């Protein structure tokens, strides 16, 4: 049911911290995954069991060091260790749903606490401003209230967030509504009835302007997205094509480490199959006249794209971790969008939608091979 959490003198963060504390005190949850403030204004992802530590909790920090899905996957594995909560943004929740379908995580015993996500900044930029990026929390919430881009004084949101089409965390059990938030009315929160009784909340519907604000944010993001994807697709089809986009790749595999969907224990490209013998490189070079060393840089990107493009939720972590600043997230979103459309599949939408590769229809892909 919909209820509101009272906010004293406009301090939204305090209200949320209190709410999270009560979740632990009431025994509803044994532990909650939530970022904690640390020295230098950083927001460090943590698993908190002591309600007192919730005082440092800062789920509103506009930064995402890791995609929370990876943490929850490690935490739950095949079965949640106990009654655990996790404060997650929408792209983290959607990635987690994909991981559940890949048997890498489970939602049993897990309570997802979702926040409307106005967007995040790159970690280094955020750190430079000791946590005051974008004019600090106040301006950030104000931007959320009016549906503006919270970026300011030369600092912009991560491109993935600027073009994100799912800022609201619909699949979460508990949902905080920050768009169009008027702190004086309290924070509108959607809570399962049982939990609401346990915590003593009663139904109250706040007729916030959230819907309109959400529409405004989505419209802006959609425009940004269409422009950005068109640009990268043009680059892909320009001379040199897709490979040219990865000329700067230094094979550090950061993008694979940061990506929530890349769940392999040991990536194929780090396994024995790819430490080739010397004569392999020589004969390959003889065949083609010249061979990019080490030869599997491009093959790695294409294979990773092949493995996860259907499940790519567009969280942009790959772009954020790429030392060569290759727009990996943009490329994978451009390809992923087409793959997902072809299968009529939206990653993270619901557990009931089977993974495209797992389903087989007799008369699928009849036009394979013919030029579209």
């Amino acid at each position, binding site marked *: 049911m919909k209820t509101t959490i009272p906010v004293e003198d406009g301090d939204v963060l305090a209200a949320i911290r209190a709410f999270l504390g009560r979740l632990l005190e009431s025994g509803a949850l044994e532990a909650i995954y939530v970022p904690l403030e640390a020295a230098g204004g950083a927001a460090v992802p943590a698993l908190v069991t002591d309600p007192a530590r919730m005082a440092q909790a800062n789920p509103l920090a506009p930064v995402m060091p890791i995609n929370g899905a990876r943490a929850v996957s490690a935490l739950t594995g095949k079965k949640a260790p106990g009654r655990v909560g996790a404060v997650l943004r929408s792209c983290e929740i959607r990635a987690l749903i994909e991981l559940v379908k890949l048997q890498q995580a489970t939602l049993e015993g897990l309570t997802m606490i979702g926040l409307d996500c106005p967007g995040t900044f790159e970690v280094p930029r955020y750190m430079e401003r000791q946590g005051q990026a974008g004019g600090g929390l106040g301006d950030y919430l104000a931007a959320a209230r009016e549906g503006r881009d919270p970026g300011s004084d030369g600092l912009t949101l991560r491109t993935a967030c600027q073009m994100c089409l799912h800022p609201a965390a619909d699949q979460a059990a508990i949902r905080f509504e920050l768009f169009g938030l008027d702190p004086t009315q309290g924070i509108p929160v959607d809570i399962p009835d049982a939990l609401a009784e346990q915590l003593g909340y009663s139904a109250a519907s706040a007729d916030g302007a959230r819907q309109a604000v959400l529409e405004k944010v989505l419209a802006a993001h959609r425009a940004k997205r269409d422009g950005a994807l068109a640009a990268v697709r043009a680059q892909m089809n320009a001379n040199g094509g897709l490979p040219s986009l990865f000329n700067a790749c230094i094979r550090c595999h950061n993008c694979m480490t940061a990506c929530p969907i890349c769940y392999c*224990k040991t990536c194929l490209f780090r396994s024995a*199959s790819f430490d080739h013998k010397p004569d392999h490189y020589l004969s390959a070079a003889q065949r083609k006249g010249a061979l990019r060393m080490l030869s599997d840089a491009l093959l790695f990107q294409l294979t990773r794209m092949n493995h996860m493009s259907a499940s790519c939720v567009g969280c942009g972590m790959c772009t954020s971790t790429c030392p060569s600043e290759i727009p990996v997230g943009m490329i994978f979103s451009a390809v992923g969008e087409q793959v997902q459309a072809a299968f009529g599949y939206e990653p993270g939408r619901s557990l009931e939608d089977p993974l495209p590769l797992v389903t087989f229809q007799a008369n699928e892909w009849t036009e394979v091979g013919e030029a579209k």
Partner: protein
Amino acid sequence: MTFTPRIGVYVCHCGINIAATVDVGAVTQWAAGLPGVVVSRDYTYMCSDPGQALIQNDIRELGLNRVVVASCSPRMHEPTFRAAVSAVDLNPYCFEMANIREQCSWVHPAAETTTQKAMHLVGSAVAKAALLQPLEQRQAPTTPAALVIGGGIAGMQAALDIADAGFEVTLVERTSSLGGHVGLLHRTFPTLEPTADLLGAIVERATHHERLRVLTEAEVTAVGGFVGNFDVDIRHGHEKEKVKVGAIIVASGFDVFDARRRPELGYGVYPEVITTPEFEQLSQSEVKINGREPKNVVFIQCVGSRDQALGHPYCSRVCCMVTAKQARLVRERLPNARVTVFYMDVRAFGKGFEEFYDATRQAGVLYRRGNPSELIRRGDRVVVRAEDTLLGEPVEVEADLVILAVGMAPRADTDALAGLLKLARSSDGFFMEAHPKLRPVDTAMAGIFLAGACQGPKDITETIAQARAAAATAMIPLMRGEVTVEAATSVVDEELCAGCGQCASICTFGALTLHPTKGVMVSNAVLCQGCGACATACPSGAINVRHFTFDQVMAQINVVSDFRAPVFSAAPAEAEVASPS
């Protein structure tokens, strides 16, 4: 100590089949220069005894540890050469064939490029041979017992055959009695003899066979294991039991088409309209409708069959003869009743059927070609509105009894059983056989067979034939006492496997399952057919198919993708090049 390959290459002329378009000598000489090759020969017929002797002598005298024969398709003579090398104690999986006949000489003209292609194929086989590992073909013992699901005539006949052959059989029947649909019949075509004693004899034998245990009001709840070693959970009444069997025969039968799905024929609305199964019951007592003997009886064919609009495009095969038989019964029981049959095609195809159809017409049954469109009420009679396509005009035939020849439909619970046994279903909804022409009773799952109408509409004769065929196929693993476990099957590297299950969803043979505790996938060597689909699907590259490992295949690709023309190795090959003896 490191393994150094000592490979023998044998290029076959196959009479003129290869030699006509491929320069066999050049290929042999070129092969001699390949790494690891110690001897390279060519011979007119490698598959002949002298040809095989060549290989065996070289293995003994030159200590070959890998052999490559370049000749025909492995489907033709791989077993022959594997037997030849293992006769001289070389592991059969240390042998590789290059198909330079079906894939080269038979499909290309005599030309330089054809010889070069042959060289590439031989080079690729040699590259793989260097990486081959010895493998053992295991035998798994089979439980000399069988399970039959379904107590109709198909299930009983299959069970009796296997029991007669000396094996324990458990028959599970959902209802409380044996006989299935045939139990509801009164007379059968083409002999018009009563089905009671026909069926009675079979039920009698089934209930009193010392090696056949019949469980009625029972159903299979779970099936584990694989061919030769199925463990089956059965719910019998309200207690459960486990049975271990070597083979399973599915004889779950069919459902009768619900004539209500053709509302314009008035079934369930007009009391005068009944179906052929209902008439079969009626014919065992007084044939009366609304209390009086009908004067005008009309049969309507193809109700629910050959009907794409209802999603039943198939022919139900038996209704033409059922109608002919029932028409004869009507003529017999109601001599002065007029009997009309509306049909599209009369399918009297079996032995004695056409003669029976002739006799039916001679008995005064009027066959009119037309597929009735609707039935309407007129006074106390029902009117069949149709077009007599031979007269070329619409007709209205009054009737006080209309019998709909309803077709056969897949059982409503086919899905459940299909899920239990991982069986596929063909587009008409019945169970799918492995091959419609040559393997009509096998399924994709080794050890599970189909009998009777669950695989498609059949009459009693064909059901008996298919049931006995299923029994024969099921007896093979039981009589051999063992099942050969193919060696070239998939194996999962537990270090790399993340347990994501993509491989299991792709495997059509159900060979891959999640290990209950270790959270990694496990491959069942008996079920695995070595097709390699899982290996390609696995993102982590954790699955390899023995004898077709990732490295072996990459080695072959490296050779084949080297498009430069293979030049004759200038250096004298250290291998001995022998011309045909």
